[in-house]
């Protein structure tokens, strides 16, 4: 029992400090650099240590020091308690979602099988949706506790947007669950390791293309990023985090970047085979024409972990690309898209999938 608890703790530390936090921190840098490269600029490159600039990587450090050394200001008219916990709620929701993501195949050490996943919940799928929707509390509390009209308006926009898209988010995932026949994430990943005709991997994106096309925008809407950044609208309209400054504002940003990582991990797990590499079985590569390539178990393991991280990085990159390409939706367009276009499509997808699975 003690061993189990220790193991879970080790996993939490490794995943949190080894994957999410570094990746989220790196994304603050990547967002500035990638947008710069996309726009033929250079981007942040001035922070240096002893003249060493390393492509502006020290800007992460500089940003952190700057925001955390600022005054921790709570407006006198705000609800102090709610104002203080709001950024942590968002951060918590983003971090906790990562607990059920299997980021590698089960590892066998000394006859004991260790799942590379913090918690293998039977309801992993529901858990993701539950904690994904907890992010909305961060927005609500921040806007409400600020006791500022503009912050409240931002929060209201946030609530209506996130609640609308949550429906589509859940319904688009129902198709995946129907196809893979499980709500446990390791089983969903394992099911995606099979192939059609030995060549086409049965990834969620191939079995449920429509679900993927609906899930991605809905999930981006959940992370409140451009083109769905209406709750915040940092470029002109002001949003729920209006009264925040310094460390707490930085926490909102960190939460947002963590949501990017979590979303990348979710898309990878549910639609792109998780840690599966196409044609890679436990013994090595098995191709559709019968050709095989034997690999040592360790190599297979490293390939699979690497495949997960690579897909994760790709989807983080894709989200930044989308964020720096598309303009923001108008609010009525956003809601029309969510309720009148995406929701019927998601329902249609569920119905059609169910019929296909039945027959």
């Amino acid at each position, binding site marked *: 029992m003690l061993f189990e608890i220790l193991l879970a703790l080790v996993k939490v530390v490794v995943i949190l400090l080894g994957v999410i936090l570094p990746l989220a921190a790196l994304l603050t840098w990547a967002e500035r650099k990638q947008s*710069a*490269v*996309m726009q*033929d*600029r*250079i981007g942040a490159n001035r922070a240096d240590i002893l003249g060493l600039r390393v492509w502006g990587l020290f800007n992460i450090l500089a940003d952190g020091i700057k925001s955390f050394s600022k005054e921790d200001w709570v407006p006198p008219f705000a609800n102090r308690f709610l104002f203080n916990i709001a950024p942590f709620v968002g951060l918590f929701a983003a971090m906790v979602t990562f607990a059920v993501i299997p980021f590698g195949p089960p590892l066998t050490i000394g006859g004991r099988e260790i799942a590379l996943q913090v918690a293998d919940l039977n309801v992993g799928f529901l858990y993701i949706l539950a904690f994904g929707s907890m992010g909305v509390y961060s927005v609500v509390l921040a806007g409400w506790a600020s006791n500022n009209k503009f912050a409240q308006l931002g929060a209201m926009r946030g609530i209506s947007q996130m609640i609308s898209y949550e429906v589509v988010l859940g319904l688009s995932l129902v198709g995946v669950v129907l196809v893979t026949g499980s709500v446990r994430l390791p089983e969903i990943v394992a099911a995606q390791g099979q192939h059609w005709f030995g060549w086409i991997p049965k990834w969620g994106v191939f079995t449920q293309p429509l679900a993927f096309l609906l899930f991605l925008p809905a999930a981006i809407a959940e992370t409140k990023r451009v083109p769905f950044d209406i709750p915040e609208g940092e470029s002109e309209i002001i949003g729920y985090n209006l009264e925040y400054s310094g460390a707490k504002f930085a926490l909102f940003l960190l939460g947002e970047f963590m949501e990017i990582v979590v979303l990348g991990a979710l898309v990878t797990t549910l639609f792109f085979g998780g840690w599966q590499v196409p044609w890679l079985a436990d013994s090595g590569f098995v191709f559709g024409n019968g050709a095989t390539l034997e690999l040592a178990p360790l190599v297979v393991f490293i390939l699979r972990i690497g495949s997960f991280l690579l897909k994760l990085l790709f989807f983080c990159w894709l989200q930044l*690309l*989308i964020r720096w*390409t*598309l303009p923001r939706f108008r609010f009525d367009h956003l809601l029309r898209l969510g309720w009148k276009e995406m929701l019927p499509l998601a329902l249609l997808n569920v119905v059609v999938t169910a019929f296909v699975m039945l027959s």
Partner: protein
Amino acid sequence: MARFVRVDRQATLKTALYYPAVWTGLWITARHFFVNMGRHTLHAIGLKGGKPGSTTLQYPEVMRPLPRVLRSKHRIKVHEDGRPKCTACMLCETACPDFCISITPMEHDGSPEEKAPAEFRIDLDRCCFCGFCVEACPKDAIYMDTQIMEISSDRRENFILRLPELLDPKPLICTGPEFRGKPVEKVLPHLGWRNLDHVTPVKVDLRYREEQLARLHAGNPATRPAGLE
């Protein structure tokens, strides 16, 4: 006469489906990303050829090429024997829309004009850099061609130009002679500067630029009016 332009905003199938239009946009930005990353990588591994990966000029080190006609900080030209060409005729002071020039004339027996400025003040805080003083000058004395545009200070008195500063011929600050190891004339066309007639590639004197800034910020006792501070 107003002209009405009918814009057909009817959604086509491509825009109504969102995804095709979105992919078109993403394709454009992704292409920029990969092309620029490729160029940056080539530069990083030491291949200096090819276009630069960005159009950025790293400003404090490399200055954007300034056109020759740019109106910048003023100067007063001098004759060969060193006396100012200015004869204190007050035309520039009269022409100035901002009343930023004030001249105190004096008699000058040694010159053919018999008149010279005892004091010549230009308040750069007021100056709108319109160049009317240059146009008005009958003696071709005042010019705005120093190409010095970094005029900043935290003291008002540093913005008041006096005669010694106006007469002091300083080198033009312009662009650096090279940009990432290549002659600036080779690079500028890639940055959108097709016409290089107005570009003066002058070797940038960084030490001079630093001195200039330090002087502006420290406050020059010679230019500081008595009674302040």
